[in-house]
Structure formats: structure tokens, C-alpha cells
């Protein structure tokens, strides 16, 4: 087995473990904002996983997907943060 393939498998396994831990924080998070931060982290880890998959499959078609995930992750967490901010202000 190639060295790079083994390292890529280890890296993806570590990402999976990190995503499971972050998912536990999403489920447990005492407040909504904890869940927003954990979701943002999940998006980032998924983006890094897509970049690693680009190396694994030796294809540059994954970069566009990673870029879109970066942009949509920002939109999601900014919208959720804005919503929580406004909701608190109006109350």
C-alpha cells in the first residue's frame, strides 16, 4: 500500500472522529449559539475532507465544491447568528 494512501485514510478517519465529537456538541450544546459554532466547525471539517478527497482521487473537480461549501457555511452561520442577535434585541 502506498504511503500517501495510508496517510489519506488516517486523515479522513481523524476528520470523521472530529465530526462525531462536534456532532455530540451539536446535540448537547446548552444554547443555540453553541450549536451554531459546532455547525460552522462541521462545515469546515467537511470542506477539508473534500480537499483531501481531491488529492485521493487526483481530480481538480473537487475545488469548486470546496469553495461553494466555504461560501455557504459562512452564509449559514452568519444568518443564524444574525437571527439570534435580532431575536434577542426585539424581545
Amino acid at each position, binding site marked *: 500500500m502506498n*504511503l*500517501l494512501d495510508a*496517510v*489519506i485514510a*488516517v*486523515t479522513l478517519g*481523524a*476528520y470523521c*472522529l*472530529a*465530526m462525531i*465529537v*462536534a456532532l*455530540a*456538541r451539536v446535540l448537547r450544546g446548552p*444554547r443555540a*449559539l*453553541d450549536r*451554531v*459554532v*459546532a455547525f*460552522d*466547525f462541521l462545515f*469546515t*471539517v467537511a*470542506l*477539508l475532507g473534500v*480537499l*483531501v478527497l*481531491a*488529492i485521493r482521487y*487526483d481530480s*481538480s473537480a473537487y*475545488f469548486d465544491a*470546496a*469553495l461553494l461549501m*466555504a*461560501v455557504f*457555511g*459562512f452564509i449559514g*452561520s*452568519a444568518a443564524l*447568528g*444574525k437571527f*439570534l*442577535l435580532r431575536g*434577542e*434585541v426585539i*424581545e
Partner: protein
Amino acid sequence: MIVQLLVAALLLASAVLVLAAAFGLWRLDDFFLRMHAPALANTLASWAVALASILYFSTGSGRPVLHQWVIVIVLAITVPVASGIVARAALFQLRKDRL
């Protein structure tokens, strides 16, 4: 071969950083402490993965391939804005609870 070793080292570094960020997200007590942990994945880990990808594709195709750096730039622009909004929302909630 050297390039492959370098790519492997960068990927392993990113794996360690992402794991550290995840366990920080899980272990830290306060929300404001917890907000710091994902920055590790957003900065150092993404730089490491982008550098590994640039090295791999540049040596593979024989010409510089720099598309991946755009993702790092986008992250560097958007992440501080998002975390600023989230921090302000948390600060408002905290003040409202104290009053």
C-alpha cells in the same frame, strides 16, 4: 518521493489540528472559550491542507496549480465576520441574562 513525504506530513498535521479543535469544542467549559477552538481548523489546518494540495497537484501536472489558495482566502475573509456576529449575539444574550 520527498514531495510525497511532505504532502503526507502536512495532511497528518491537519488531522492532528482538526482533532485538537474538535476536542477543544467538546472539553472547554464556557461558550466564549469554546468559540476559540474552531479557529484552529479554520486557519492552520486549512492552510496545511491547501499547501499539501498545491504541492501534490503542482508536482503532478508540472505547472503551478494555485486554485486551492482561493479557498483559504475566502475562509480568511468570511470566518472573522461570522464569528464576530456570533460573538455579538452571545454577548447580547449574556447581558440580557445578567440584567
